[in-house]
């Protein structure tokens, strides 16, 4: 079998995008792309759910779409932590085998100090679900006038990571500035529960990704492709253009992060029961 370039793409979606036409954002096409690019699996969200009042219907649709491809595509349902009954969505995620859930505070107007975020962090920590955050869907300069949500802030990421000692967080689409502000404002123990994809971090000639690998460390990074919004080749290219001495570094992988989250939740449960 051909060697995989990355075992898991933690950040893919399926479904239409409200602000422009996306070419065939379908599960079967994603499976084809993963195979072509030698990526083992993807964690997949329902793209329209990021803008829905109640994400439950889009999560149900997501499960249905992914079920024929269960060996390759794993669900990452959307959770709205200020919506009645949101904990049930987490329980459904666990029973469906989801490694993570996605929350979009900026699209929902949830501030960094909202108790809803802290409650979500605790609930996910207890269940061993990784929390996934998206900094942005498109570049600020091209957004539709109705797409008025700002980029995710470091304060949001800090609030979730600090809210619970078990919660594990993956942030997608951060640039160097947001990543550094967040990483260096966390304790070492908190840093170890926070992961970043490098899909919006530039390679040469600025070499920001190389810089961050050397300062923040390769273990904080995980592969995320941003499909179907962006070319999955972008983070692959950024990695392949690293200076030779960095190419041998091992980044985190989704499966390992999910296992850590589950292990932390069990530790939490035994501590609580003891």
């Amino acid at each position, binding site marked *: 079998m051909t060697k995989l370039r990355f075992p898991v793409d933690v950040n893919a979606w399926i479904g239409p995008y409200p602000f422009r036409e996306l070419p065939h954002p379908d599960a079967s096409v994603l499976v084809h792309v993963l195979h072509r690019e030698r990526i083992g699996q993807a964690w997949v969200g329902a793209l329209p759910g990021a803008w829905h009042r109640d994400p439950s219907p889009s999560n149900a649709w997501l499960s249905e779409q992914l079920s024929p491809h269960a060996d390759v595509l794993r669900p990452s349902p959307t959770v709205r932590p200020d919506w009645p009954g949101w904990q049930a969505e987490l329980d459904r995620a666990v029973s469906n085998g989801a490694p993570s859930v996605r929350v979009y505070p900026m699209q929902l107007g949830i501030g960094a100090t909202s108790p809803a975020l802290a409650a979500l962090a605790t609930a996910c920590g207890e269940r061993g679900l990784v929390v996934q955050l998206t900094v942005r869907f498109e570049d600020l300069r091209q957004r539709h006038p109705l797409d008025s949500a700002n980029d995710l802030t470091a304060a949001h990421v800090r609030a979730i990571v600090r809210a619970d000692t078990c919660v594990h967080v993956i942030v997608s689409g951060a640039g160097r500035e947001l990543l550094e502000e967040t990483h260096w404002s966390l304790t070492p123990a908190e840093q170890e529960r926070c992961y970043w994809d490098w899909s919006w971090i530039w390679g040469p000639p600025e070499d920001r990704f190389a810089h961050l690998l050397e300062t923040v460390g390769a273990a904080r990074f995980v592969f995320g492709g941003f499909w179907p919004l962006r070319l999955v080749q972008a983070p692959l*290219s950024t990695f392949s253009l690293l200076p030779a001495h960095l190419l041998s570094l091992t980044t985190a992988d989704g499966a390992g992060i999910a296992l850590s989250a589950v292990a932390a939740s069990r530790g939490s449960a035994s501590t609580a029961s003891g």
Partner: protein
Amino acid sequence: MAPRHLIDPHAHFHWAESRDDFARYNASRLRACDAIGVSCQVASILGTWGKRSPTYFASPGDVSSGNDAMYAIADAEPLRVRSFVHVNPNHTIHALAEIERGVARGAIGVKLSASRRADDPLVDAIAHDAGLRGLPVLHHVWQHRQRDWANQEASDALELAALARRHPNTNFILAHIGGGGDWAHSIEVIRDLPNIFPDTSGSGVDRGMLDAYVDAVGPSRLLWAADLTLCTALAKLQALEVMGLAQDDLDDICWRNAVRIFPHASFTLT
């Protein structure tokens, strides 16, 4: 399938007066271009990149000294690097003299950034002169500029199209469809303008963008390019390679269109 050669018609370098780590930056660019397989890049330096005068409103002195630094880099890498001559149209006499001086120093194109709106009559003398000399004009474009942004007088495709219509014998490169703004807006504006060649550069890697441009303007007018982010340039090259293009079409986009629009014998392709 891979292209037989690769020419980047939208590149930039730095120099001692623009950033402290210019040598690292330039070396990184050359190393990455080698890794990608770029045969030659056509590059410019925009004055002092904001250090002494604004990047997009560079003073005449900074324009000239930046160009000199660019020519020195091209002299040192004659096969891998060719030069644009960068000018600020607000200083028309200086700009025209700088083009003449640049051609003598080996420049093969004119670089206009965001110093003056493209449809402004002040740009006509430069567009005309470039056409007479057979030099393409690489024009910075903000795709669908809906307002003015600080520190630049950016143009969008509508304004570049107005200039291109007034100068049908001059070829224009519409800069970085992935470089910010709404790339979909520019497609319809330039679809039927044969002397505008959009380049694929910029940090943007939206799915659907390359397909839309190939469909609209055809492989004979699209130019693969990098600008400031070589990682996204490689991504777009790899995307072009799996789009199902014919070898000739891929070659057009990746190097042959550049050979056609730059002066004869600008590139040594081995």
